[in-house]
């Protein structure tokens, strides 16, 4: 988080990505690799299995960036990514988690 204060960081435009993925070892690597190879930091990650556990949902919080459209297209190309939805920063999934980070 370098030298940004918590409030400054919050002020950056954020996007929350919601991914439906197949649930097996390696999927997270595929997803994170797309960001890391572009030196595009993922600020927050949350992943839980859905229903019977054959699929999972991954929530990613990332900074808004000119590369985001390309990132979404690249995510959609991954064989194990079934769907990608974009939400604004107001999405509550990470806000509710905040209490675990106090």
């Amino acid at each position, binding site marked *: 988080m370098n030298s940004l204060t918590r409030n400054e960081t919050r002020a950056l435009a954020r996007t929350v990505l919601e991914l439906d993925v197949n649930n097996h*070892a*390696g999927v997270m*690597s*595929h997803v994170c*690799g797309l960001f890391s*190879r572009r030196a595009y930091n993922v600020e927050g990650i949350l992943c839980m299995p859905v229903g019977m556990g054959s699929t999972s949902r991954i929530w990613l919080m990332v900074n808004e960036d000119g590369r985001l*459209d*390309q990132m979404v*297209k*690249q995510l*959609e*190309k*991954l*064989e194990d990514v079934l769907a990608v939805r974009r939400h604004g920063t107001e999405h509550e999934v990470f806000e509710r988690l905040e209490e675990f980070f106090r």
Partner: protein
Amino acid sequence: MPSTPTENLTGAQIVVRLLERQGVRRVSGIPGGAILPLYDAMSKSSKIEHVLARHEQGAGFIAQGIARASGEVGVCMASSGPGATNLLTAIADAKLDSIPLIAITGQVPRPMIGTDAFQEVDTYSLSIPITKHNFLVGSAEELLEVIPRAFRLAASGRPGPVLIDIPKDVQNEVVSVTEWPEPGKAEPTAAPDADLIARAAEMINAADRPLLYLGGGVVHSGASAEAVAFAEKLSLPTVMTLMALGTMPVDHPLSLGMLGMHGARCTNLLLDECDLLIAIGARFDDRATGKVAAFCPQAKIVHIDIDPSELGKIKAAHVGVQGDVKTVLKQLAPKTFACLRKDWLTRVAEVKADHPLRMPGVDDPRTPYGLIRAVAESVDDEATICTDVGQHQMWVAQAYPLRRERQWLTSGGLGTMGFGLPAAIGAALAEPERTVVCFSGDGSILMNIQEFATAAEEGANVKVVLMNNASLGLVFQQQTLFYGERIYASKYKGVPDFLTVAKGFGWETVDLDAAPDARAALRDAMSHRGPTLIHASIDMREQVLPMVAPGASNKDMIGG
């Protein structure tokens, strides 16, 4: 799934059966401990021939040569650890040039994964960024799903490499098989959007100075005939990327040859003047566009590609059509109006006449351009032309009269020195009726020279034309042009006697330097079957020109 009598088979036997059912006739590879069960099962196959490479990277490029020449999925194999890591360069190369490739690697047994076992490496993680998809197979049962799926993925949409890592105990696991899955084939691509095609047609019909920009996707789609017919109907001057060479014959009146870093001056200058760029199966690679902001500054862009992530990746398109380019061309062509375009073609002819590709020495077979033309005269269009990477590659791209789809095999995106010889071997094995000419340099050839042994063993009809300048020519050129002539680490102090080396591997040799009549020597060399090294010395100071400096705009060309 068609029902068959129940059979108890090992994972290895299942793999071999599935490969046979895919119609795979040839795989290249090198065995080792963790893949021995698969090799044992393959030894009993009468349908699959194994090509024993001398280095796994060679095996990967042999499989690529098969895939690039035939359009079918190539298959290579390696053991765990160093076998797998040695394959990686060939896999990465396939990813960047969208070549359908299946790489099967052995892995240590499941209980030993993660223990730093002998020859264990995390092949799955290593291959993530360089494959279209990859699998670590967890059971013999899974193979029935994974293998056909891997073939389907490799061949569908934008083709690419798929890696299948199979632990040794999975290869040995016995399961009963009652049904066999259908072989994995390329899935049809979704139909292109009719509205977008209509908008593209409108823009094309309204354009005064349109240019057609063909990329490797035209080859993958098998759409050369459609692309040429489209250009002819609309009188579209046409540029090709390195990967697309051969899709329009270079001597076609509408052809402007290759664009970009080593394109002719007229080609890059005309791109500057066009008012519409129709990009088909091309991805605006930096070697083609130069400085992107200055690329086709006056042009609107119609971009047609099978991969939606390419649309708008580098340059925003005014209309981006996702679809198989052959399908799109078939739907787009009837919506456009035939046109003679006299003014624009007159201007094109003028710029071509004023700024042609200059090929000094083209009539002298002892110069780079002259040698390439003399080789072309010694074979016909049925010959397959393969290259390594470097100056020789660019000279051949500029000067060889390529006229056929899949006539041209070269490492474009990754630019892998060492590609040429093994890829040529693969092409020669896939299409034994053809002569495969591999242009190489003394830097490139040494990067996979061990495959001389493979070619000799297979009797592959490969003619290596070695353009020896005793240096890493393109590095030497860049140091000369851009680094104050500080030549460092690009001149070889020791150069092997390549003729003796080749003879030692059992190759025929031709010393072109000593031949009194170079053209006759070339004709003679091409008339015999089997591997032959044709050695020609080149002056180290020869340059590939014109040249756009990396990062510069295409209109700022040096030389030529």
